[in-house]
């Protein structure tokens, strides 16, 4: 069976997951552990008159009750990004509220008891005296003249940021024949990994060291943030373990106050302290995604040449800045507004706004779905307004396949791509030519059939550290790897990437097995433990293979280079005469060779070994810092049928062609695309994180109120890939984890508006909204 690069190998990790032997954070029971429950604010905005814990402390099984007063010496939760380094209003975020609460779900107290049930009972007995303040829930309310301020600031503004040449864009609009304008809402989402967040904090007095088990996509980042910026624990005294993690989708990137609270409390109470969120708690306190209000204008000539794009966006930050909150609506958004088009002048301005809602951070795609949504909606709308076929309009404006590297007017330089090829194949796959006939057939059944395109581009493989620094990231964005060859030739790979569903244990093992010419079974991948892995920046932004995989390749290169030295000695040849292929070191032009396993053994039993020049052992580490982002692109085509009586939309076809560069495991890549599409369809049709505009109460606080896609909401998908290799990383890979979520919302809303003949329907396009839009269109 082929297990090399390009093979659809079934996954190493599946056996444990399928037999119930996965090891998720909540599955861990530490000896002597106590259980924490957090008392969360039930109001959106209030001063705390008092937090009375006396009754709770006397409840059965209670070990300790802590409030903000107990954590006064503890640092606040830090933010990891300020656009261009600032200025940005960055108010403190205490772990437990210090005198004030700012959203429903803000943590007021922590109750620790022998059992989770006892902690829950006691939490009910914590008496919080709220002096309620008016809440600002919508961005409009937050920015109104004289609006109540959430923090000790003049207003509720976090930042105002812009990208692109405003003057050139104004000039482009001045000479335009046609301007298409849309006002769009990018609805707030709750990522909803099926595994709720959990954390266990533990202190070991014998070694004066701490361990945090947590549901994180990036354990080293948590160690750095919590150790250096919050609790003042040096790295060598703090171990962070993220074992099996049940989905992340961005919500498990940020450093959360619960992680700090259990780690701190573990020392206070002298036992491990465990917390696991309930689903409603997840809705209240996990970071949310999206939440933009945008006005977009596209300037064109009468024959559809794009001249300029102007965008103004208000981005909701929530009540506090989450770790990467301000990154998402700025540099992960504005830089993608060229899309796959040659638009020469682009100006985008973004206002980040504080509101009395949960903090907003990354959600699958993070910034790029928002950019793609507005761009592909305005392009499709322009096509309709100009009477040009949407395929033809896109074709007229594509960046040509021979124009790479392509410098956009919004900083980034695309590395490679062939957008026309992608669109052509997608249109063929979707039988675009036969659509008119299908529409007629649907009409005869009383159904309105529509078709929508979304071309997209995304910047993945985050990120060159020097660029990250310039734009405002307070971290490098390289990745680290260690490849440890054991004496008998099997290999352990330690990666700073983290798998929470992506299948790294399989994909990375394929890369190693392929490069070293050793059996796939002989390679195991280790991740998620800061004590085992030298360093890491984690998994988000479709970066694991492009950056983490590249770090592994660099370490493999070092292994092979050292292996050649050992082989040259063993084969009595010059090092430069040794080739390595298919697991054999060979003297070029001879039949003299030695296998990888023999070289590994020789490295650890160095009897016949060049000890004067070479250390024993075969164990190499590498850090890889990318030289550019990668730019996957693709085209998704959605076909829907709307029932005009009820407004119900059924997705009848989903065809997509994506270019992810080289592919290591096509089975896993297809799975990533399927999942991504489901996230995008969820956003466009079903999901909405809703707060009451006056009280700031979360209205969508359970899975009965918040609709994530079920199996019968989705069709089977027809997907293919094309391949323009990434020219600047060793595997030629671009990343695939977010593509579906980026493309799907625009494709779906384009299809629905096409079906019912209206200019726009806001997401989520529920039957009620679709029906109302149809009624108003028919009334016109």
């Amino acid at each position, binding site marked *: 069976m082929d297990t090399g690069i390009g093979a659809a190998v*079934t*996954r190493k*990790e*599946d*056996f*444990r*997951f*399928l*037999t*119930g*032997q*996965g*090891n*998720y954070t*909540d*599955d861990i*029971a530490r000896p002597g552990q106590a259980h924490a429950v957090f008392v969360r604010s039930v109001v959106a905005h209030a001063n705390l008159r008092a937090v009375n814990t006396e009754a709770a402390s006397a409840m059965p099984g209670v070990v300790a009750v802590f409030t903000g007063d107990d954590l006064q010496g503890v640092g606040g939760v830090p933010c990891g990004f300020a656009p261009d380094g600032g200025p940005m209003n960055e108010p403190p975020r205490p772990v437990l509220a210090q005198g004030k609460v700012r959203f429903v779900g803000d943590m007021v107290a922590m109750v620790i008891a022998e059992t989770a*049930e006892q902690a829950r009972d006691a939490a009910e007995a914590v008496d919080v005296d709220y002096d309620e303040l008016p809440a600002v829930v919508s961005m409009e309310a937050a920015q109104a003249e004289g609006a109540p301020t959430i923090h000790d600031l003049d207003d509720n503004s976090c930042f105002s940021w812009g990208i692109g040449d405003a003057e050139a864009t104004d000039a482009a609009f001045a000479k335009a024949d046609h301007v298409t304008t849309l006002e769009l809402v990018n609805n707030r989402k709750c990522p*909803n*990994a*099926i*595994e*709720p967040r959990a954390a266990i904090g533990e202190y070991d007095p014998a070694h004066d060291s701490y361990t945090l088990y947590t549901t994180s996509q990036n354990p080293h980042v948590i160690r750095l943030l919590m150790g250096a910026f919050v609790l003042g624990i040096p790295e060598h005294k703090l171990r962070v373990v993220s074992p*099996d*993690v*049940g*989905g992340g*989708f961005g919500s498990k990137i940020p450093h959360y106050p619960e992680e700090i609270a259990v780690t701190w409390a573990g020392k206070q109470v002298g036992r491990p302290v465990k917390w*696991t969120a*309930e*689903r*409603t708690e997840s809705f209240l306190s996990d970071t949310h995604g999206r939440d933009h209000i945008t006005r977009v204008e596209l300037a064109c000539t009468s024959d559809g040449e794009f001249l300029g794009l102007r965008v103004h966006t208000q981005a909701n930050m929530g009540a506090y800045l989450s770790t990467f909150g301000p990154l998402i609506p700025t540099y992960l958004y504005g830089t993608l507004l060229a899309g796959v088009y040659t638009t020469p002048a682009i100006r985008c301005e973004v206002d980040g706004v504080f509101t009395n809602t949960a903090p907003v951070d990354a959600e699958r795609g993070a910034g790029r779905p928002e950019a793609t949504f507005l761009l592909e909606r305005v392009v499709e709308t322009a096509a309709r307004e100009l009477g040009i076929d949407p395929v033809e309009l896109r074709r007229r404006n594509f960046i040509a396949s021979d124009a790479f590297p392509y410098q956009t007017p919004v900083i980034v330089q695309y590395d490679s791509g062939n957008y026309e090829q992608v669109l052509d194949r997608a249109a063929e796959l979707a039988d675009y030519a036969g659509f008119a006939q299908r529409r007629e057939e649907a009409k005869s059944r009383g159904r309105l059939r529509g078709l929508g395109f979304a071309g997209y581009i995304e910047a993945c493989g985050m990120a060159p550290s020097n660029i990250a620094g310039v734009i405002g990231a307070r971290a490098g964005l390289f990745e680290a790897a260690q490849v440890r060859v054991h004496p008998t030739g099997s290999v352990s790979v330690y990666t700073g990437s983290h798998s*929470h*569903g*992506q*299948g790294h244990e399989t994909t990375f093992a394929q890369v190693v097995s392929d490069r070293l010419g050793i059996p796939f079974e002989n390679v195991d991948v280790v991740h998620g433990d800061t004590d085992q892995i030298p360093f890491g920046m984690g998994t988000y932004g479709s970066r694991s293979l492009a950056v983490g995989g590249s770090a592994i390749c660099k370490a493999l290169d070092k292994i092979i280079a050292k292996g050649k030295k050992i082989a040259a000695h063993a084969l009595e040849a010059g090092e430069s005469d040794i080739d390595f292929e298919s697991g054999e070191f060979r003297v070029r032009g001879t039949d003299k060779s030695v296998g990888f396993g023999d070289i590994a053994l020789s490295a650890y039993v160095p009897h016949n070994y060049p000890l004067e020049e070479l250390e024993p052992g075969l164990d190499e580490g590498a850090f890889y810092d990318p030289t550019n982002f990668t730019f996957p692109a693709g085209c998704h085509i959605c076909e829907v049928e709307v029932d005009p009586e009820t407004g119900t939309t059924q997705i009848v076809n989903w065809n997509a062609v994506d270019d992810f560069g080289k592919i290591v495991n096509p*089975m*896993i890549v*297809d*799975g990533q695309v*399927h*999942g*991504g*599409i*489901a*996230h995008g369809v969820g956003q466009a049709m079903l999901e909405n994180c809703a707060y009451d505009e006056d009280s700031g109460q979360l209205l969508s606080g*359970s*899975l*009965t109120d918040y609709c*994530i*896609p*079920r*199996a*019968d909401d*989705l069709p*089977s*998908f027809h997907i293919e890939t094309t391949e323009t290799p990434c020219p600047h990383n060793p595997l030629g890979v671009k990343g695939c984890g977010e593509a*579906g979520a980026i493309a799907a919302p625009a494709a779906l809303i384009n299809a629905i508006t096409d079906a019912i003949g209206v200019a726009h329907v806001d997401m989520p396009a529920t039957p009620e909204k679709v029906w109302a839009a149809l009624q108003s269109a028919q009334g016109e």
Partner: protein
Amino acid sequence: MTLMVTMTLNGESVSAEVEGRTLLVQLIRDHFRLTGTHVGCDTSQCGACVVHMNGQSVKSCTVLAVQADGAQVSTIESLAENGELHPMQQAFKDNHGLQCGFCTPGMVMSALDLVANNPDPSEAEIRDWLEGNLCRCTGYHNIVKSIAAGAQAMRS
């Protein structure tokens, strides 16, 4: 006040003292330490906690432990024998029907109940049956394929 619960769990007779409010899933996970059954939502929506009770799939977050007194309960841990996956588990592996693995035990246990009643389910029937099982990773595409393939393997 505690109550005694006795049940057959994965073929073994077991008993435990529980509180009246203790849920079956808590008993399985916290007391018997079978952590393959997961809790995803607490409100009977997600289905990560599906086990079989007297041969039928139930959401163990919505069954009191005392209700399982005298019952035959089986969990995901009971399916594989001597390291050999059950045909339904194998079908999930072969068809990439899982990613993060968190919903997977509930999906597999639910699928087995479907197939017990409908040995050759259509795609539409599978999708309809999965109304009570949520997955956030796969978009269901490969879960549906897995269940169809698992059903076929179990028929042959």
